[in-house]
C-alpha cells in the first residue's frame, strides 16, 4: 500500500503562506482580474475567422454539392431552386459549426460571419433556407462597447472600447489550386453529352466523328475552371480532376 506523504510545513512557512494569501486577496479586491463580459450591453470582439453563422453568395455557387457531401453532421441539404439548380440549406439544429463546408467550397460561395448568437423560436425555423442565407440576418444590437482580451505581464485584462464591432466580414477568396478535367478512358465514353450540358463555361464540346460514327468529347483546358461538375455528372465515371500543368 502506498501512502501519500503530506508535506509538513513549519510555523514560519505557514505564516508566510497565509500572509501571501491575504496579500493576494487584498490585491484582487482593489484591482481584480475579472474577465466577465456583460453580454447584451457589450460584446466580445471576435476574430475575423470565427466560425459563426453561414452566409451564401448564390452567384458564385456552382451546385457541386461538396458542402452537402462533406458535412459531418448532415446539416446541409441541397434543395432544388426554380432555375433547376441545387443550392444548400443549413439546419442549425444539426450544424456543429465545423465549417468544413466553407473550406470545401471551391468557388467561395459559402462564407462565415462573426455572428455566434443565433436564436430561433422553434425547430422548424432552424432549417435555414437558401434565400435566408443570402440576406444578412436581422440583428438587435444593444451593445455600446466592444471588449477585447489582452494578455499583459502574464495576466489577462479586458480592454473596452466605445465602438461597435462589425459582425460581417468580407469573404476571403478561396485559394485556387488550378485543376482541370481530364478524361481517363476515352474508349468507355458513351457520348451522352451530359458533361457538355453541365459545363457552365463551355469548356467541353463534342465533335461528331463521321468516319467512325461516334461522338468525341473535347475539353478546352483554357476554359475549364476545374469545378468538377462534369466529373460528378459523368455516367461512366471516366472523368477526373487533375492538377493543371502549365
Amino acid at each position, binding site marked *: 500500500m502506498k501512502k501519500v506523504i503530506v508535506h509538513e510545513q513549519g510555523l514560519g512557512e505557514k505564516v508566510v503562506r497565509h500572509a501571501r494569501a491575504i496579500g493576494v486577496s487584498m490585491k484582487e479586491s482593489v484591482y*481584480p482580474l475579472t474577465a466577465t463580459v456583460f453580454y447584451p450591453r457589450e460584446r466580445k470582439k471576435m476574430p475575423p475567422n470565427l466560425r459563426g453563422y453561414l452566409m451564401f453568395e448564390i452567384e458564385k455557387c456552382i451546385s457541386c454539392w461538396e458542402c452537402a457531401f462533406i458535412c459531418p453532421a448532415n446539416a446541409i441539404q441541397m434543395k432544388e431552386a426554380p432555375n433547376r439548380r441545387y443550392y444548400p440549406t443549413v439546419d442549425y439544429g444539426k450544424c456543429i459549426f465545423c465549417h468544413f463546408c466553407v473550406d470545401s467550397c471551391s468557388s467561395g460561395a459559402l462564407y462565415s460571419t462573426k455572428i455566434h448568437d443565433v436564436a430561433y423560436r422553434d425547430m422548424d425555423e432552424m432549417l435555414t433556407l437558401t434565400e435566408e442565407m443570402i440576406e444578412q440576418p436581422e440583428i438587435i444590437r444593444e451593445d455600446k462597447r466592444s471588449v477585447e482580451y489582452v494578455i499583459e505581464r502574464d495576466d489577462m485584462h479586458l480592454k473596452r472600447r466605445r465602438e461597435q464591432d462589425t459582425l460581417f466580414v468580407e469573404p476571403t477568396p478561396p485559394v485556387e489550386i488550378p485543376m482541370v478535367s481530364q478524361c481517363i478512358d476515352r474508349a468507355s465514353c458513351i457520348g451522352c453529352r451530359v458533361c457538355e450540358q453541365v459545363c457552365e463555361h463551355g469548356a467541353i464540346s463534342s465533335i461528331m466523328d463521321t468516319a467512325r460514327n461516334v461522338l468525341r468529347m473535347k475539353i478546352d483546358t483554357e476554359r475549364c475552371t476545374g469545378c468538377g461538375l462534369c466529373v460528378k455528372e459523368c455516367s461512366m465515371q471516366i472523368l477526373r480532376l487533375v492538377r493543371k500543368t502549365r
Partner: protein
Amino acid sequence: MEEVINALMAAIMSNQVNIPLLQPLFRLMVQIPGAGFMVSFILWKPFFAALISPGFATLGILLLFFPWVERKLCGRIQWRVGPHEIVWWLGGIIQLLADSLRFLFQEVIVHKDAQRPYFLQFPFLTFIPTLLPLLFIPAGSIVAIQTPYAIQIILALVCLFPLFIIGLGWASNSRFAFIGTVREAFMYFAYEVAFIVAVLAMVILYGTSDLVEIGAHQAGWVWGICINPVAAVVFFIGAAMATARLPFEIADAEQELAAGPHVEYSGIGFGLIYVICYEKAYILSGLMTVLFLGGGSGPQIGVLGELSGLIWFLLKTFIVMVTLFVLRVLYPRYRLDQALNIGWSSLLSLSLFALALSIAITAVAGAGAVAGAVGGGIV
C-alpha cells in the same frame, strides 16, 4: 403631574448626545412646542444608542447593505462580478432590498412533521440574544445601558445563539436539520471555552468589565490588541466560529446539508435567519472593537462632538466585519473534527496563554492596573 413631567424632562435633558455642529438647529427646534421634546427625546443618550446608533437603525442599514458589500468584495477577489443586474449602473446596490421583498411575499411553508408553534416562533425568538447585546455595546460615550456587568451579560447572550439555532433545527424535524443541529452543538463546544477565556483575559487586563470604562482606557493609541494580541487572535477566530461563516460553516454546510438547521424554512422565516448571521457578526465585531481596537477612540472631530466617537466605532466595526467575511474566499471549509481539534487544542492553549499574559502584565504593572497605566508602563 407637572412635577413628574418636569422631573422626566430634567432627566432627559441632563443626558443628551452633544453635537456642537447641530446645536444651533436644536436650539431653534426647542422653541417649537412639540418638536423640542421630540428632539431632546431622540438625543436622549439611551434612546439614541438603542434605537438609532449603534443600535437598531444602524443595524437595519447595515443589514440592507452589508451583504451586498460582502458579496461584491468576495466576487472581486474571486474574479467574479457579484450582484450586478438590479440597478446595474450602481453595481446592484439594492440587491438586498429586492431579496427582502421577495422573502416578504414568499409563501411560508410549514411542513407536516414540523413542531408548528416552535417552528414559527424560533426565527423571531432568535432575535432576543442577537439584539439585546446592542444595548450594552458603547460607541464612544454613547451607550444605552451602562453597567459594570456589561461583558458578562453580552457573553451570556452570545452563548445563547447556538441554543436558538438548535431549537430551530429541532422544530424543523428533518434529517438535514438534525445533522446540522448536532454539528452546531459540537461547534458550540469547539469555540465557547476559548472565546470566554480570551474575553476573561481582557477583563483581567483592564480590571473592569464595564465596556464604557474599557473604551475610555484605550483613549490613547495603546489599544488592547497591542497589549494582548494573542487574546485578539483567539477572539477573532472564536467570532468566526460563532458566526458560522465559511471557514467554519460546518452547521449549515450548503454542499452537504442544503442549509443545515434552516433547511425547512422559506419566505420571511428564512429571511430572518439569513440576517441573524450578520447581526451576530455585528455584535461580535462591536465587542472586538471595544475590547481590542479602542472602541470609539481616534482623532476627535470637534464639531461632531460625541458623534466622532460613534463614527470611529462604526468604522472599526465595519473593518472587523469585512475581515471576518472575507475569510470565506481565503479558506476552504474545515471538517467538524478539524474544527473541534482547533478549538480544543491550539485555540484553547492560545487563550490560556493570553490569560497568563494578562495576569503577568497586571502583576508587573501593579494589581488592578488599568490599561492606560499598563500601556504607559510597557509601551
